[in-house]
């Protein structure tokens, strides 16, 4: 039944979107996401998908058009990266505030200046408080699978929030991998058409985007907090449903070797794959190391993370973005906050910033991080709380 084809991350996302019966795609091309938009326009121009493709004049307009389209009840997709995501920043808050279940593919890329087109997570980390759900894929297969699941998660009436599926720029966006794709009909069975409840149907006129002053604004934001909380279970439900269709198992996060790990790496995206490979080697040498890979970064899977950490004594948290001036960088801050909240602040943590602007992180680097984490677990001393991996002094 399942077909195996070779796809890059960009192609895998576009292929998934093609199967999801989207109504409107509004997007602006930007490296390294360009191929996603090119492919989608090709599908539309060849009549392979029955959607309107709005080739907008900027990412700001891309997200604006997506919001307008989504309010009609349509199923909507867009894609971007880096400066494009930064340009649509204003609209990201509005998309979530107006409760538009837009799905967005992001080929993560560094932010200027200096100009750089390669992969890191600065773009999406800058958008982490926009009220979107965020998923990070490790490979093209995960990107494909999460796109299909994302429409179902976002459009669920308990959630109604936008979601981004992130792939590492170039590393995933441009690498060809083996991807098991579903038949179109199977995707249709898994993902029925969107069923909106309230739309801007002129027959039942509504007002969307009214001015909420101090007497109402706060309530709207509280609702968004609630919706993100609700999304934990919706994501899990959709994951289970997807597993029964495909046999591929997803969750809020993935763990490797955590049942007995003394030290672990926490990482998003493709680097988690490298970390798992290194952990496998280390474990065969008898070293008790593990990996935690949050698939879902927003809402932050704190409960699952605490469970996954188990009895591990040291965590090395890898951030592919800088939170300038902050005590820790984004992912690490969330991990530390979760540990604190669950009374596990005795777990030792250090934060490794790596891979900015597409700088490679090698298995050797990761092995060193594991060894340092094991050392800290043994001695009880963290040598360096904040490290920059692979930067020249």
């Amino acid at each position: 039944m399942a077909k195996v084809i070779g796809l890059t991350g960009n192609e895998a996302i576009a292929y998934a979107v093609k199967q999801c019966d989207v109504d409107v795609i509004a997007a602006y091309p930007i490296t390294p996401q360009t191929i996603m938009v090119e492919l989608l326009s090709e599908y539309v121009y060849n009549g392979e998908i029955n959607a309107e493709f709005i080739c907008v004049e900027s990412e700001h307009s891309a997200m604006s058009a997506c919001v307008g389209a989504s309010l009609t009840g349509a199923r909507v997709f867009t894609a971007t990266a880096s400066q494009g995501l930064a340009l649509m920043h204003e609209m990201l808050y509005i998309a979530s505030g107006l409760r538009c279940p837009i799905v967005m593919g992001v080929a993560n890329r560094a932010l200027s200046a200096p100009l750089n087109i390669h992969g890191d997570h600065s773009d999406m980390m800058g958008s982490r408080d926009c009220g979107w759900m965020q998923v990070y894929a490790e490979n093209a297969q995960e990107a494909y699978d999460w796109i299909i699941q994302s429409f179902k998660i976002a459009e669920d009436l308990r959630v109604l929030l936008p979601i981004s599926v992130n792939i590492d720029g170039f590393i995933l966006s441009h690498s060809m991998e083996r991807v098991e794709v579903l038949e179109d009909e199977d995707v249709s069975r898994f993902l029925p058409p969107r069923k909106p409840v309230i739309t801007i149907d002129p027959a039942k006129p509504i007002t969307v985007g009214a001015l909420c002053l101090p007497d109402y604004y706060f309530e709207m934001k509280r609702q968004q907090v609630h919706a993100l909380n609700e999304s934990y279970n919706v994501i899990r439900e959709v994951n289970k449903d997807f597993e029964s269709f495909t046999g591929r198992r997803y969750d809020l996060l993935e763990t490797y070797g955590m049942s007995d790990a003394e030290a672990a790496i926490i990482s998003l995206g493709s680097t988690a794959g490298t970390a798992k490979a290194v952990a496998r080697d280390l474990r065969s040498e008898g070293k008790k190391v593990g990996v935690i890979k949050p698939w879902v970064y927003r809402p932050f899977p704190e409960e699952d993370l605490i469970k996954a950490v188990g009895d591990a004594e040291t965590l090395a948290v890898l951030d592919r973005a800088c939170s300038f001036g902050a005590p820790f960088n984004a992912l690490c801050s969330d991990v530390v906050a979760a540990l604190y909240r669950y009374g596990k602040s005795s777990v030792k943590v250090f934060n490794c910033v790596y891979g900015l602007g597409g700088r490679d992180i090698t298995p050797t680097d990761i092995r060193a991080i594991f060894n340092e984490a094991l050392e800290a677990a043994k001695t009880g001393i963290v040598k360096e709380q904040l490290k920059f991996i692979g930067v020249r002094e």
Partner: protein
Amino acid sequence: MVRLNELPVEELFTSGHRLCAGCGAGTIMRMTLKATRGPTVVVNATGCVEVASTIYPYTSWKVSWVHVAFENAAAVASGIESAYKALRRKGLWDKHVDVIAIAGDGGTFDIGIQALSGALERGHDFLYICYDNEAYMNTGIQRSGATPHGAATTTSPAGRKVPGKPEFKKDLIGICAAHGIEYAATASPAYWNDYITKVRKGLEVEGPAVIHVFSPCPLGMRFDSSKSMEVARLAVQTRYWPVYEVEKGKYKLNIKVPQPKPLIDFLKMQGRFSHLFQPEFQHEIEALQRWVDENWSRIASLCGETA
């Protein structure tokens, strides 16, 4: 030709909005919705109308209405128009929906010009209305690209050295018409018949249409609230605001002004120009008069009229 007693009695833009007393935009919104022909969605950029008509939990709108942000009414309209197109093609929607984007001069001339240009170029079927009160009135009268030469605003004050805005107004309809759209027009609410006819025409056009309407603002232009329509009328009668349309590239002067009133009749009604009447700034009035004359003869000649 519109007859007042044949216009719908029902107000789709209701009372209870909080626009200033005498606000021309209130009149323009009422007239706009009286010209609608069926299912309509209004996209409203941030600005006076948006803020004053939808203070939660109250809305003056009886059509579906969407506000997203300041600079993107045309982009949001693109999304709505495209979505209904897609949904109709899939049999999930059965009606034609008129999409009207409404923005002030700030949301059109300045921060929204890119989104507008993009939407016009892509040819979405929608009507864009710019109600132009010639400054950022909503936030307390700051200059815009639509503010006329010499006008005092809080960011182009009547200074001792620089008497109001040194620059001249942008040619919005020229910019829009240059996209090759089927319909672009100017209007003044004082000429209600012309304006309402144009709104209907703009809706009937398949593809984008733009209407640029003068919106008298008692607060920002500084005149008595009762004088709104008088100011809007004088704008036309002094040739300050030529009322014309560009249909399929063909210019037509809709309101001829064979014997224009002196521009100073228009200027002296408004506090924003009062500083120009000091003797040392007389040349600024002359500069504005020259601009008006040149603009008029340029448009008249495009319209095939002898100025």
